[in-house]
């Protein structure tokens, strides 16, 4: 089932009553979550992504706007009747129930003809447990399990009633790095197997990029950009999105445009047809640097980091906004380096220009 958000807005009264006014958590969010897809809601802490999730599941009522599940307006439908599954950040497993009882609970709440018999309930709960590979732990209490196991139980509990939408609120944040990597693949697999429309909230861009069909980048309650992860990464709408996506992060330079050429410091690096003269903020992805004997960008080289499959050049440049910047090459070639200096050619697709005042993207005319 596709989920449509129309002009969804949530305002909270300001905590500090003396200041008065309101805090806008989510501002005019319009988006359609496609049927059967996994969508990542991405943004820094406090950007309104969890609030959006709570509005979709009905635990918080929107101040304005509408929510549709398919064609059905569910904006005023109470949570318990929405039929959504939600995995909480801390899992919220009922501590006094066993794993089986936890998974059975949503089924026991069904009413009327939807309510299966006891044997059927146990069969479906066991099936959900098998899907997340915890069928051997059904008699345990939540306190007797590791974080990863608890997380699986939470997913099984959310899935067992075959929800129309599955919502995950930072489900991996309590897991260690290795388990996080493994579990996100599991989530992807389970989502593919069940085909349930899934919304996944995270502040970790790598997590969102790796498993989402589409991502929504939010900042201070406002949607910045939506789209396929790679498309958003390659073609960010503004400086915030460019900075938020990518590890290592994008390198930022103060540059200027003169006569349709981009200058970094005194280096004349790229033609930028159609852009008027003036200063610009330049973002260059770490993979956008190509070391070359006669490359136009002339930098100081602090050191090389050889990290298995790729090499990082830690460089300095007068125009760079940070002390050093990082260029990454897949080969272990160190061509272009001369002692403490290195010259780069820039891949034009990896060089992104932004208005230094507004952060809006500036696009040169296609050559």
């Amino acid at each position, binding site marked *: 089932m596709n989920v449509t958000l129309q002009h969804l807005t949530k305002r909270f009264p300001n905590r500090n009553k003396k200041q008065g006014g309101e805090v806008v958590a989510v501002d005019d969010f319009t988006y359609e979550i496609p049927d059967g897809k996994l969508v990542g809601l991405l943004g820094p802490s406090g950007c309104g992504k969890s609030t959006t999730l709570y509005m979709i*599941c009905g635990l918080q009522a929107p101040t304005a706007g509408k929510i549709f599940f398919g064609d059905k307006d569910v904006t005023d439908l109470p949570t318990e009747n929405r039929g959504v599954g939600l995995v909480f950040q*801390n899992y919220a497993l*009922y501590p006094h129930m066993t794993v089986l009882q936890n998974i059975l609970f949503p089924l026991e709440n069904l009413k009327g003809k939807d309510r299966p018999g006891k044997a059927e309930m146990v069969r479906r709960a066991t099936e959900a447990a098998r899907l997340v590979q915890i069928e051997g732990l059904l008699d345990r209490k939540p306190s007797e399990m590791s974080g990863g196991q608890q997380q699986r139980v939470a997913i099984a509990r959310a899935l067992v009633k075959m929800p129309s939408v599955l919502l995950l609120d930072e489900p991996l944040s309590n897991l260690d790095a290795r388990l996080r990597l493994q579990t996100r693949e599991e989530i992807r697999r389970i989502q593919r197997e069940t085909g349930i429309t899934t919304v996944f909230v995270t502040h970790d861009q790598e997590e969102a990029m790796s498993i989402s069909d589409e991502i929504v980048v939010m900042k201070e309650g406002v949607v910045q950009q939506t789209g396929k992860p790679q498309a958003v990464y390659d073609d960010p709408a503004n400086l915030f999105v460019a900075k938020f996506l990518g590890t290592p992060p994008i390198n930022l330079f103060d540059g200027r445009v003169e006569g349709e050429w981009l200058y970094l410091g005194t280096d004349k690096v790229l033609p930028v047809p159609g852009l008027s003269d003036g200063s610009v903020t330049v973002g260059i992805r770490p993979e956008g640097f190509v070391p070359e004997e006669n490359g136009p960008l002339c930098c100081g080289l602090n050191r090389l980091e050889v990290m298995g499959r790729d090499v990082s050049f830690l460089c300095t440049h007068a125009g760079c906004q940070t002390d050093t910047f990082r260029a990454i090459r897949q080969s272990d070639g160190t061509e272009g380096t001369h002692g403490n200096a290195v010259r780069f050619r820039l891949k034009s697709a990896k060089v992104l220009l932004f208005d230094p005042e507004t952060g809006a993207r500036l696009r040169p005319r296609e050559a």
Partner: protein
Amino acid sequence: MEKNNPKGFLYLLPAFLFLGFFLVYPLIDVFVYSFQENYNFASQTYTGVGLYNYAYVLHDPYFLQALKNTFLLVLITVPLSTGLALLISLCLSSIQKLRELFQTIFFLPYVTNTLAVGLVFMILFRKTAYSDGFVNLILNALGFASVDFLSGPYWAKMLVLCLYTVWIVMPFKILILTSALASVDQTYRNAARVDGASKGRIFWRITLPMISPSLFYLVITGFIGAFKAYSDAVALFGTDLNAAGMNTIVGYVYDMLYGNAGGYPSYASAAAILLFAIVLTITCINLLVSKKHVHYV
């Protein structure tokens, strides 16, 4: 850490001595007295050893009356006060405005002097030459005849005693239960709502099990407290409880020691041991029941 470190026992010694002197020794002493016939404090003499004291106490109509009163009091007030306290705590935790005001009001009886409370109950229930008491005024206004609550029929006296007890013990229970309810993470209730549970089911399946340790604590202490009731009855019916027919087991023990019929430590000891046995049995039953229904997390 070395276990069974003799130093540890040394540190425990002061507490052991204190408890032994003031708790264990008297308990054993009372147990011994209860088997000594006609024990006399002054001369430290007794006439025989046996079960005579128990036989006497168990055939004493005053003791049987006290037993009946105490059991009625326990069976009525413990469930009633705990249930009401739970209801009030639930209401308190679901409101935001005026919550602190109500919390204070409900806690007032706890910090009020027993005599002042007794006076309030006098005004409510006592028949005097000038007035039949406030409750009777209301009954009259509704078209019912006056009832002599404090020296009239048994059920009226029992009603007042139960009301008094419930009113006295509720504040503490409300205090414990509101804090227990506040400590239940809202996330669990949210999760249950997402899981499609109605308000009633959330209460029975989530909230109640999660506050069950506090509830169990209140039931156990409530049972023990109600079995040991005495001062409440005195506040309402005066010191001659046997005459009023409202004596309790503790009252009976006291009367046997110091009351009008006083000077019978052997009977008092036997009655005290009987009370001890009853409370112990009930507490054991409570503990057994709790194994199944109380969830410590």
